[in-house]
């Protein structure tokens, strides 16, 4: 999915990214939320859908705040909206030779075969000196991740609450400027 061009790396920038696939039902919640945020706060942030956290590299460089909106599956009540501060796990760097850690548990937080997880993307960005100051995940507890488009009624009803949380976070960041 194409992301919008980075319009300059101002230190007060707030970036909002919707993650997930619209073809997997509730997994499209992040993109639905971001679409509504774009309509309500078009000047306040850079908004774009993304599939792979790796796509965020370059786009979020130097931002004050990055808000990633995504469907989650944590065992909580479906439709629950949660806000999670992303703190990447710090693991010791291996020095030479084959990796000591079993390859199935890489530091990148690998969740797919071709990309790296959000935590891994943030760690990578920090390593190369281009990380945003703060990354927050706004999660919506999904219930249906099957094939097809369209959110479940429970998640659909939660979308306005998630939009409010995102707008609130944007407002807080702006008021601190």
């Amino acid at each position, binding site marked *: *999915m*194409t992301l919008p061009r980075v319009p300059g790396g101002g230190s007060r920038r707030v970036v909002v990214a919707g993650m997930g696939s619209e073809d997997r039902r509730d997994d499209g919640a992040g993109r639905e939320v971001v679409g509504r945020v774009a309509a309500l706060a078009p000047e306040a942030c850079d908004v774009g859908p993304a*599939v*792979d956290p*790796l796509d965020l*590299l*370059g786009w979020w460089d130097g931002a004050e705040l990055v808000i990633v909106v995504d469907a989650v599956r944590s065992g909580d009540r479906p439709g629950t909206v949660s806000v999670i501060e992303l703190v990447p796990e710090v*693991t010791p*760097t*291996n*020095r*030479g*030779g*084959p*990796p*000591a*850690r*079993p*390859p*199935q*548990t*890489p*530091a*990148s937080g*690998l969740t*797919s*075969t*071709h990309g*790296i997880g959000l935590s*891994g993307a943030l*760690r*990578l960005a920090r*390593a*190369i*000196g*281009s990380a945003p100051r703060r990354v927050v995940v706004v999660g919506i507890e999904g219930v249906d991740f099957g094939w097809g488009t369209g959110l479940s009624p429970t998640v659909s009803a939660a979308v306005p609450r998630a939009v409010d949380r995102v707008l609130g976070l944007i407002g807080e960041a702006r008021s601190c400027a």
Partner: protein
Amino acid sequence: MTHGSGGNRTVRVDGLARVEGQGSLRVEISDGAVTDVALEIFEAPRYFEALLKGRGHTEAPDITARICGICPVAYQMTACAAIEDACSVAVDERIVALRRLLYCGEWIQSHALHVYLLHAPDFLGCADAVELAERDPVSVQRGLSLKRTGNLVMETIGGRSIHPVNVRTGGFYRAPSPESVAALAEPLRRARDAALDTVAWVAGFDYPDVEGDYRFVALRGGDRYPIESGWVGSSDGLDVSAAQFADLVVEEQVPRSTALQARLEGRDEYLTGPLARYALNEAVLPTIARQAASAAGLRSACRNPFRSIVVRSVELVFACDEALRLVASYEPPNPPSVDVSSHAGTGTGATEAPRGLLFHRYELDEQGVILQARIVPPTSQNQLTIEADLRRVVQGGLALSDNELTWRCEHAVRNHDPCISCAAHFLDVAVTRR
């Protein structure tokens, strides 16, 4: 994970999980000799062949693009070639050039991803790209910059970098403006410099002294390095059309796997991908890429699978240079596509995906409805050769510790195919000694 002791060991790699399917790896060692190697891959692209039946001929490029998020252009271009072959349609040179430019973008982003984020960590003792970035941020930054340039080319020509939306049978929905294409020149010049640095970087890695007796199979493109078209050649004298090649490829179901394994009728296993392309087409690389290859110690062919990262880097130089040539000579095709009217018949298309030869074959009825579809990706074609590599690597590495042997096996898989190799980054590996 490795278990066992003495001369009897079993190397198991379970759960070769990836979005498209599952697979595993098992190596049996008895009395110090490798007795069995099984690479088991379950490939989702098979389902697409059934999905395509009953769909319109113009839908094939967009449907098949969904097979892969890394090389959607390869599927689109190959589907277009096969459908146009079935409908006896030829596109004009400007459309061919624009397709080639789009494909260059995919090569750049895919090769940069594999070289920097998937393959290089193996050589530098890193578990993954994050660990590599922590140790060598400048290099990873360079790789990410290259990848972004590839994405930029795909966005400019294709409308977006993943599953481009501007491709159709017969050409494109819209020709990009000359200004937007010209704007690619400066990023591509920087990318070409970065690609040259990449070749020098990987040339300094330590490589196991291993060579395979490969049967290389790749497109041959006449006076240009092959990407979007060509005849199929091999290192043992094959010189056939895509349609003839498709007739020669035999796909077999083996009991241990839902994956199909391809072999050449009467010739057995073969290898596609960068090593094969380079071996059969080195002479037509542009001077800048040939010089980079020579400086990195490559001769006219490379049979060390671990050095595929060097060849892939040389192809990065080529792809950037070729994209620059195409940008400089760009003329918007007008109209941006030619009519591909429905036509009963069978068509075959073959192109060079970043990781190897990809071919499609479609049978259409007079309304253009797809009656049969056959899609053979590089992964299927390389499976038997990867198993042969593993056998060689294990036999030569029996003295290695369990951890090192398992790691070397995964590395051997990653040498050839990102679709497997990226999954291999989280394989559950088990080596059992008995």
